[in-house]
């Protein structure tokens, strides 16, 4: 944690309220986000219990598994979820724009103009917390390989038709969520943590309601008191006043509310089966009503524990929308649109589901992408937000100051002299400005000119608080710098000691050319056969 963040947290302790960590919003927010609040059944990896979802805060939809151990009921749930979520995910696939590019003809080597489709917008899922993202990943893993009745060999337990497709989408979204700065799938705790500091620790901030308590504590309470109430206050039946944001439920809810409700459902279904077996139509009819009542009761208790979190997520979105969007959001969202379009195309091309594990080349490519995007995010946030840049200044990686002097100078070693003027600025910052180190001038787009302007540290006078830089580029091709390409005395300028453009990643071999050091091509090594019907009880 940087000292700047610590300071904001200290301020929040004193004020009892959340304090800003950003002056702009650093993540794209869709006009029509899909909020998804999942719950899991305790004791089993990724076993779904219920989900509340929707794009309208006033009309949440609930899907549930009345008996989480029952495979058929679980498939019913997943089919319902697929029927609900897939139309949203697919609704962005049609509206496309044509992006011009060039492609090398593999035979002639000639470049030809090509057009590629890019979806005009993309879906966005918002879950309450990081555990929610991991739950969706587990759901994706457990469903994308399922065979359905439409497969040649459906196996003993075919899943409903659209369930594997749901799994592939969830896998794509959760994988994309690993790439820094992306916005197809976001957690509300993560969003809030990027933009505000509370007066508690990161660990406690994982509790969505406790986190939000710092934003709007009830009258007379500090954020800390409100947060503790959200964490632990219980009613006279021992139930939490504010249920946790999931996906895990409170054990005491499981014990005293959920388990009895499921037991009543079990009893009703058992009675129904008995009635059917005994051909006792009257008893069966009574049992059917009892099953309906039991399911209705489950709907009620699950709605009751999900609604507070549902409202919290929407409340969080309201808070985030009060911040103006950062300058580079559209650029990064375009990357998300490409990601969405690419997955749409892979599905359309009939490609197989994402493998359980990446092969060596895919893993290395993903790592390179994540590192590149992390670097891009760091730079863009610093350029978009003075508070982010302040973090770099505090760390000695950037400095701001007022220009005191600009002295013309030239590099005369080449055939024609090049401008190499010296710019001196007065600053209170103390960067790690070793002599000769490369520096980069930050220029807003409004100022025009080339985005990158390189310089090197020419002199540092810590006592006088001045730094002199020799400008190296971005001044045009003539002997004298282009007008407007240099700052003038009195201007406020910022330089960074890190590059403002992100380097390309080095090329990697195709998976089929995986070298001997990494086990050779994936097909060469024996791969465990994918199980057709993984046990799932």
């Amino acid at each position, binding site marked *: *944690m940087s*000292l*700047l963040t*610590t*300071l*904001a*947290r*200290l*301020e929040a*302790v*004193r004020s009892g309220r959340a304090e*800003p960590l950003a*002056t702009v919003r650093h993540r794209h927010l869709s006009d029509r986000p899909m909020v998804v609040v999942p719950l899991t*059944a*305790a*004791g*089993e*990896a*990724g*076993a779904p219990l219920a989900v509340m979802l929707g794009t309208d805060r006033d009309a949440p939809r609930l899907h549930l598994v009345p008996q*989480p151990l029952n495979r058929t009921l679980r498939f019913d749930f997943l089919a319902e979820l697929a029927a609900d979520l897939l139309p949203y995910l697919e609704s962005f696939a049609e509206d496309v724009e044509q992006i011009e590019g060039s492609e090398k003809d593999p035979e002639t080597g000639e470049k030809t103009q090509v057009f590629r489709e890019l979806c005009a917008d993309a879906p966005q899922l918002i879950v309450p917390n990081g555990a929610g993202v991991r739950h969706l990943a*587990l759901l994706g*893993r*457990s469903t994308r390989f399922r065979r359905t009745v439409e497969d040649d060999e459906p196996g003993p337990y075919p899943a409903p038709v659209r369930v594997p497709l749901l799994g592939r989408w969830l896998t794509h979204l959760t994988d994309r969520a690993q790439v820094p700065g992306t916005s197809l799938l976001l957690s509300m705790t993560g969003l809030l943590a990027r933009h505000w500091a509370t*007066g*508690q*620790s*990161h*660990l*406690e901030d994982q509790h969505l309601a406790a986190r939000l308590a710092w934003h709007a504590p009830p009258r007379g309470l500090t954020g*800390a008191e409100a947060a*503790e109430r959200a*964490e*632990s206050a219980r009613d006279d039946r021992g139930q939490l006043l504010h249920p946790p944001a999931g996906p895990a*439920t*409170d*054990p*005491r809810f*499981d*014990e005293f509310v959920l*388990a009895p409700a499921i037991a009543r459902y079990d009893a009703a279904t058992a009675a129904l089966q008995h009635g059917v077996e005994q051909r006792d139509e009257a008893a069966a009819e009574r049992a059917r009503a009892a099953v309906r009542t039991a399911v209705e009761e489950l709907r009620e208790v699950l709605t009751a524990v999900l609604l507070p979190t549902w409202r919290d997520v929407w409340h969080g979105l309201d808070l985030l929308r009060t911040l103006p969007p950062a300058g580079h959001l559209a650029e990064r969202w375009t990357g998300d649109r490409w990601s969405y379009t690419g997955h749409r195309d892979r599905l359309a091309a009939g490609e197989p589901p994402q493998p*359980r*594990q990446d092969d060596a080349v895919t893993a290395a490519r993903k790592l390179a992408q994540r590192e590149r995007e992390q670097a891009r995010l760091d730079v863009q946030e610093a350029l978009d*937000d*003075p*508070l982010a*840049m*302040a973090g770099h*200044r*505090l760390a000695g990686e950037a400095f701001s100051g007022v220009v005191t002097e600009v002295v013309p100078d030239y590099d005369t070693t080449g055939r024609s002299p090049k401008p190499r003027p010296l710019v001196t600025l007065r600053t*209170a910052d103390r960067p790690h400005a070793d002599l000769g180190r490369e520096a980069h001038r930050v220029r807003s787009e409004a100022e025009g000119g080339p985005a990158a302007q390189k310089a090197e540290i020419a002199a540092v006078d810590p006592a006088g608080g001045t730094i002199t830089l020799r400008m190296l580029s971005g001044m045009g091709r003539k002997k004298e710098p282009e007008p407007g390409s240099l700052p003038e005395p009195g201007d406020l300028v910022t330089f960074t000691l890190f590059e403002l453009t992100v380097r390309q990643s080095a090329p990697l071999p195709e998976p089929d050319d995986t070298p001997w050091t990494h086990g050779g091509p994936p097909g060469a090594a024996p791969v465990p056969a994918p199980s057709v019907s*993984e*046990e*799932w*009880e």
Partner: protein
Amino acid sequence: MNVSTNVPSSGHAEPLAQRLAELRGPAPQRSLNARSLAALAANPGCHRRAVLDAAGVDKSALAARLGRPAPFGQSPFAIARGVIFESRLKADDYAALLEPLRAHLGVPADGGAPVQVPDLLHRSGPAVRADRTVEALARAAADPDAWTLLDHPMLRLDVAGGTAYLEPDAVVVHGGRCTVVEIKSFPVLDGGADPAKVGAAARQAAVYVLALQQAAAALAGRPLATDPYTEQRLPGSPRSSVLLVCPKDFGNRPTAVAVDVRRELATTRRQLGQMTGIGRLLAELPAGADFDLAADEDGVPTRSAEELAASVEAVPAAYGPDCLSTCELGFHCRARARCGDRVEQLGRGVRGELGSIRTVTQALAAAATEAVTAEATTDAETGPDEAAERLAYAAALRAEALGRIPVAGRA
């Protein structure tokens, strides 16, 4: 799935044990179990935790009496699933358990010697059970071809001059050596598992390995090797890899994964060695302080909540937010840390940048000082306070970025 048994009050109470028993009062002693080991690992420097655990105080009950009960609990669904998983493992003469174990230890699936499962007298007291385990282990180790499964054996471990009893899920003996088996209900998915849970399981298993090492060294009449990484290959001594048995993927089929616990073993040895320092902590307790949670015949508690709180307060805590998920007293200590204005309430990591500043008020006062005056706080003893200077600098940058005008002297 580790169920630990209480240590019986020993016949000849040593002064330390006697003092610890007095602190606890008549309540039964809580022994080292998975949760207290986790708390030890998470916060070895906390004196409060050290004293309460050494005395075997029921911290959960204590937390409830202090008004901030521990939030820990287990869902009945999770418990039921764990029980089902373990019972499946043991069905048909442990067939489901032995299959992955054999695969791991390189023993042919069939044709080998039949598995012995000696009776370890589960209904007896811990001392009797521990003796019986020692015998069974020695007998099993004597025949390298034999293949023995000790189901819930009882192990002794010397901790701080006292004896703790530990009950691993199982120990397999083959080839004259033994292997600790730890059964967990979290899944191994595509060969991976929750690293935090595997870490906790490894630390727990390391304690069993240490107990078995002590036992083997004692049996051989040799001292325990001083180097923590040395594996003494004595008869019946444990392998330094343990087997974790978990459900595989999304199903209920068991899979066994070997986990190398040598690092955890080295750590555990040092930490348990530290526990001998408990006498020093006890000496600092004021007279009359104790953690007696008992009630008299009418149900009236021996100690009021205020008295208990005062006793708890007498032992310093090293609170950090991690405590909330590992220690029953976490919520109590957080409240105290907030009252004390301690910076640790924000996380242990924040202290690294704050130098000798310990409270929120101090930190904000430093931040509100203008950089120039921060230099003036230089005192001859410590030199300029860099932490205060950096805070002031950070505050100025923050104010500038937020468009706030820094107000000098705001506190």
